[in-house]
């Protein structure tokens, strides 16, 4: 794409929106530049709007529907979509629109909890491995190798199956176990790329301690790729949760979840395809929104990645 070749001179101090009084010039212009490129990226706008709707849906489902998703009458079972029931009703006669709306909460909760957990673990372990190298790096890298040797869905399937009662916490916990290695590697890589730069050597020569160097110099300069990946990861996690729940090892009834809706609907896919269609659209749009947001952030932070 042509706009990637924007000369760097433009990124100079024109916009003095520093994130704090101490924020260095380079930092401010990197994020300001990223923001400018984000604003004009149509994918960013689409995914941001989708996410805004989705998060509102997860926090305040009442805003979208007056129906109670747990109020089910067998007398209105299996209705096709109509003006009264936009998405029809399911086998138990619950309003399907309300079920799908209320399903957002569990998905988003798991996505956010896992991403935050993985983000913190990766930040710490990646920083330690990349900065100190040596045995810490060796131990962390071997553990990531080990988890990579297990195909993710397979591992999670076996793990979750051992847990008898599974709620958001349990599913999120198992997903964290399998998700941290990728991001830790990413973090380690970006730490390695800044650890030997002149300003780090200079800081060390001036007598700065490990903690100061990591906090002031390494962390701010290696955060970019990890931030972008966090958004992508949220999408991956939500997709994985729906998949595992669909396979019967994720969330359990009476939880309201898109994965459970899909797995219930599959038996009726020929007679009542609408039961599959609506949760499917919900999962698809949600995962899509998070992943393209991450892509947009990555492109904005590192224009070189755009060629991929």
């Amino acid at each position, binding site marked *: 794409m042509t706009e990637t070749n924007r000369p760097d001179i433009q990124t100079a101090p024109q916009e003095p929106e520093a994130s704090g009084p101490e924020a260095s010039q380079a930092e401010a212009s990197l994020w300001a530049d990223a923001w400018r490129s984000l604003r004009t990226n149509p*994918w960013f706008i689409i995914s941001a709007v989708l996410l805004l709707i989705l998060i509102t849906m997860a926090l305040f489902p009442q805003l979208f529907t007056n129906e109670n998703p747990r109020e089910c009458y067998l007398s209105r079972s299996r209705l096709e979509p109509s003006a009264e029931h936009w998405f029809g009703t399911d086998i138990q006669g619950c309003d399907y629109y309300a079920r799908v709306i209320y399903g957002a909460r569990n998905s988003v909760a798991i996505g956010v909890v896992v991403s935050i957990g993985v983000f913190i673990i990766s930040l710490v372990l990646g920083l330690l491995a990349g900065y100190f190298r040596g045995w810490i790096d060796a131990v962390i890298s071997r553990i990531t190798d080990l988890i990579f040797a*297990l*195909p993710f869905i397979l591992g999670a*399937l076996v793990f979750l199956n051992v847990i008898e009662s599974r709620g958001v916490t349990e599913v999120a916990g198992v997903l964290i176990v399998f998700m941290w290695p990728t991001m830790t590697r990413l973090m380690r890589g970006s730490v390695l790329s800044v650890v030997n730069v002149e300003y780090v050597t200079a800081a060390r020569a001036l007598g700065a301690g490990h903690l100061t160097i990591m906090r002031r110099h390494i962390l701010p300069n290696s955060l970019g790729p990890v931030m972008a990946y966090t958004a992508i990861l949220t999408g991956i996690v939500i997709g994985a949760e729906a998949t595992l729940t669909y396979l019967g090892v994720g969330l359990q009834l009476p939880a309201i979840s898109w994965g459970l809706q899909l797995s219930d609907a599959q038996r009726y896919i020929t007679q009542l395809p609408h039961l599959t269609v609506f949760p499917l659209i919900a999962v698809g749009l949600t995962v899509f929104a998070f992943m393209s947001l991450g*892509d947009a952030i990555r492109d904005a932070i590192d224009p070189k990645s755009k060629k991929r």
Partner: protein
Amino acid sequence: MTGYIIRRLLQFIPVVIAATLIVYGLVFLMPGDPIRALAGDRPMSDAVRETLREQYNLDDPFLLQYGKYIWGVFTAGDFGTTFQGRPVSDIIQQRLPVTLTLAAVTFVIQGIIGIAAGVLSAIFRDRFIDRLVQVSTVVVVALPVLAIAFVLQLIFGLNLGWFPIAGTREGLYSYILPGFAMAAVSTAMIARLLRGELIEALQSDYVRTATAKGMRRSRVITRHGLRNSMIPIVTFMGADLASMIGGSIVVESIFNLPGLGEQVYRSIQAQEGTVVVGIVTLFVLAFVVINLIVDLLYAVLDPRIRYD
């Protein structure tokens, strides 16, 4: 070269052992007493129970059980017996062809469509076809396999009726929809990756030289551009086989294909621990071997790489 292969194999032994040990341990932790499950409602004499426990090594300490198992796998290809007395290798033999066919169909779809789309979009850069490829890959990459599989099943199987939606009764034809579902994300990744690589290669000096010598454009693209852009694609396709293993569980369950993935899922539900361990061990081994082959393929594609 031989030395390199041996070194790589030696490196992988601990990874394989640890990965299989984890799975073995988890299955070991599965709730329920397998002997009681085997007996069902009939009363079982203590003597029979003892013999069975002896036969399945259930009284040995955990590590010894695991050791006996892994020894059997590597020396005799013995993946254990189900509690119904059927050898697990039997089940594997029966199910493997389905999974291999699915993997082969997926690989062909990925290779043909992914490479074609990548090449076209690099050659016609910024023209309509390139935009089309770019937009569609952004969308496809951001969707979970689960969603893609259901969408294909609903549209091309149910609505249009072009393909069967379940089972393998129609031979290779029944693998087309599942194959596309498995291949979709990777196809899009390959197209994007190849587009970037090829655009870069086509701007390089050796391509200009070849063109200047009067070589036909098609030959320049295939011999000079494409060959040099294929290395990351091969890496990607190899690494992707791991996600294919996870994907096969989901896709085989959705399309009801009697392959290994679907068997794992079924066996987990039925608490058939030995089957789970057997298939997972096989998957892990396959994964390791594939990775090694991919590494060796580099040397063929890029003569600059020598393993000594």
